């Protein structure tokens, strides 16, 4: 009896030690992962002088508590000087449309590739692999010509349409759907559901984690893009609502002469916050429900 209790105590102590070690280890890694971001946040509240003075001491990672009157100055100059909210609204609009279409179009394709047998499937799957491998960085000039010949240059369609399809996402959906047991589909078919209904009622809900992942990344992609939108969209005209996305406005801020480190950091924080919120919102779906056999290749 006594020895059992002893064993229990030892076990408990062991458990506590191992937990403590885990926490310490996890925290050390967290520091490594987010110190640049903490630094970005801290610097965004400082004047150029404070930034320079704090370098080399621990204060560089702390916000500017010493002079609260200038705490939000950088944000004020970033947010008020330009109609940044208009650009942010544009980006939200583009992202919303792209995210929804992206999921429907790519998930549908992934579903077909995973669950259908049809002639020509080998060819399509080769095409997907090929497009996954090719470097696409130099295709922007032919893409511009295509968009122009489609007659959509200068409209928001030029930003939205090319962003909808993603080979990577098709591939991801295909791998995921493969792991969903055939029985689900067969049962539904017996109930007389058609393929689109099966896709909508069974496949999409079961793949909530992947949908959330794809949505997050599609959002990030649209939110961060600026080279392509500024190429195909007309630049803002006085008195008209601008079409440019938020990154165009922020690039502007960063390229202006005499911008301070703090202002640049503030603009980076401003662009990163919506993305971070989207992720925090999406992440509880991302890892929640993969109970159906996991991912299978």
């Amino acid at each position, binding site marked *: 009896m006594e020895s059992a209790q002893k064993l229990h105590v030892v076990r408990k102590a062991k458990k506590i030690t191992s937990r403590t070690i885990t926490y310490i280890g996890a925290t050390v890694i967290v520091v490594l992962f987010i110190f640049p971001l903490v630094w970005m946040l801290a610097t965004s509240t400082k004047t150029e002088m404070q930034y320079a003075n704090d370098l080399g001491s621990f204060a560089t990672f702390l916000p500017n508590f010493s002079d609260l009157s200038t705490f939000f100055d950088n944000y004020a100059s970033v947010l008020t000087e330009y109609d940044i909210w208009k650009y942010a609204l544009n980006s939200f609009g583009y992202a919303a449309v792209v995210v929804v279409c992206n999921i429907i179009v790519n998930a549908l394709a992934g579903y077909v590739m995973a669950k259908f047998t049809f002639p020509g499937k080998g060819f399509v799957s080769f095409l997907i692999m090929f497009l996954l491998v090719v470097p696409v960085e130099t295709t922007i000039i032919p893409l511009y*010509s295509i968009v122009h010949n*489609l007659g959509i240059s200068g409209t928001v369609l030029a930003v939205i349409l090319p962003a909808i399809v993603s080979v990577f996402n098709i591939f991801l959906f295909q791998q995921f759907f493969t792991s969903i047991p055939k029985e689900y589909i067969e049962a539904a078919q017996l109930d007389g559901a058609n393929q*689109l209904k099966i896709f909508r009622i069974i496949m999409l809900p079961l793949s909530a984690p992947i949908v959330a992942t794809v949505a997050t990344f599609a959002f990030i992609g649209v939110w961060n893009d600026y080279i392509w939108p500024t*190429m195909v969209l007309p630049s803002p005209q006085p008195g008209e609502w601008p079409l440019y996305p938020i990154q165009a406005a922020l*690039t*502007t801020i960063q*390229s*202006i002469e*005499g911008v301070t480190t703090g202002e640049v950091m503030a603009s980076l924080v401003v662009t990163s916050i919506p993305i971070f919120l989207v992720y925090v919102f999406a992440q509880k779906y991302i890892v929640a429900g993969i109970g159906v056999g996991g991912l299978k290749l």
Partner: protein
Amino acid sequence: MKKAKKVFQVTAAAALAMVMSVSLFGCSGDNNEPAVDEDGNTIVQVMVHVAQQSAEGMAYNRITDSFNASDTAKENKIRVRVKYSPRSNSATGYETELIAMMNQGTLPDIITFDAPNTWSYASSGILEDITDLISQETQNDFFEISKNTYEGKLYGLPIQESSAGIYYNKKIFREAGLLNRVENMTADNAWTIAEFESICAELKDDCELPIDLQLYMANDETATYLLYPFILAQGGSFLSEDGMTATGYLDSAATIAAFQKIRNWADSGYTSYDASDVGFYTGQYAMYLSSGWSIPEIRNQYTQQLGEDWGILPYPKGTRAASATGSWSFGMTTQCASREETAIVLEWLVSTDSSVSITDATGMIPARKSAIEQKNYTAGSPEYLLYDQLNKTGTVRPGTIAYPEFSSAFRGIVNGLRNDSNASSIVSTQTTTLQNNLDRYER
């Protein structure tokens, strides 16, 4: 009901695809008809490389607004529209957009371009020859060195001049007892390389760093732009007249010796590859090699540290004198459909008033004489020195259609000297690469 839904969904998907393939047949861009607005005004499109909200962008805004409100615009029935296409990293993105537009025939009527691109844009037919479209009076008013010419023809006129010089901290010089040796220097009685070195040597103990040559900026054009006059002044050379041969020029003994000097200065502690880009502004460094664009930065942000106790010195001279010049310019494109109207706008954009207005905003100096007169710089002021130097020793970067390759080789040498103290081997490697790249154009 369910069936209807299914049919709808399928048709929606099919329709999307149909729309796309049908519109492929559809319109293709042809821009040779002049664009006209609802009031019958000819629209002249201008594309610029800066952001609308930057000081320079706002100046463009003012100039084009004043044009649209002017009698000139009303008499000739012209309206100007500006597309702001700001690029954060170098000019590559801006050029990509230009080329994409060129392929589709949608180039604007007027574009801005950086001076070294004159040769390639002119020879490949992006820029229009404007020799006969711009009045002689205007042409004569510009500094000869500032005009963008190719094979004797005029292709562009600069917005302003980004002449560079050596900024110096008078306080540090005074405390070191060196102020009287530099204070009254002008372009005519500039110091020599030897004097420059001896002053650096004496300053070593009086400040953190005698001079910041911006050697850390060798990843973009800045280092090339600021440093090439040093090489030329010491008898160095870059390319043959036709811009197609580097061997025998870039690797000449004088060029190698001049590059070696840069490394030696770093070794002697006169300058450093790891200098801080605000070291001069905060009063730690005695001198700073930079263009006129640093003037507003100092005046707006660093008055606390530097006050008015600073000035600009000319580039030191060796066997000859040279100073950096050549800036972004306005040019007319070959796809311009209304050349007369566009020429009128172009003249307005580079007019004396516009030059004054833009340089007031950017802090740089104008490129035309009448505007300089209006600005009325006092002798001894930083701006006056820059103007004086431009007028007397301004030298442009080498003319070649392969300027990006040249710049890359130059930057490669500057970067290479960071890790290798032997200039001759670095220069010879870069010359071989550059010559190979130049030979591609001959095939």
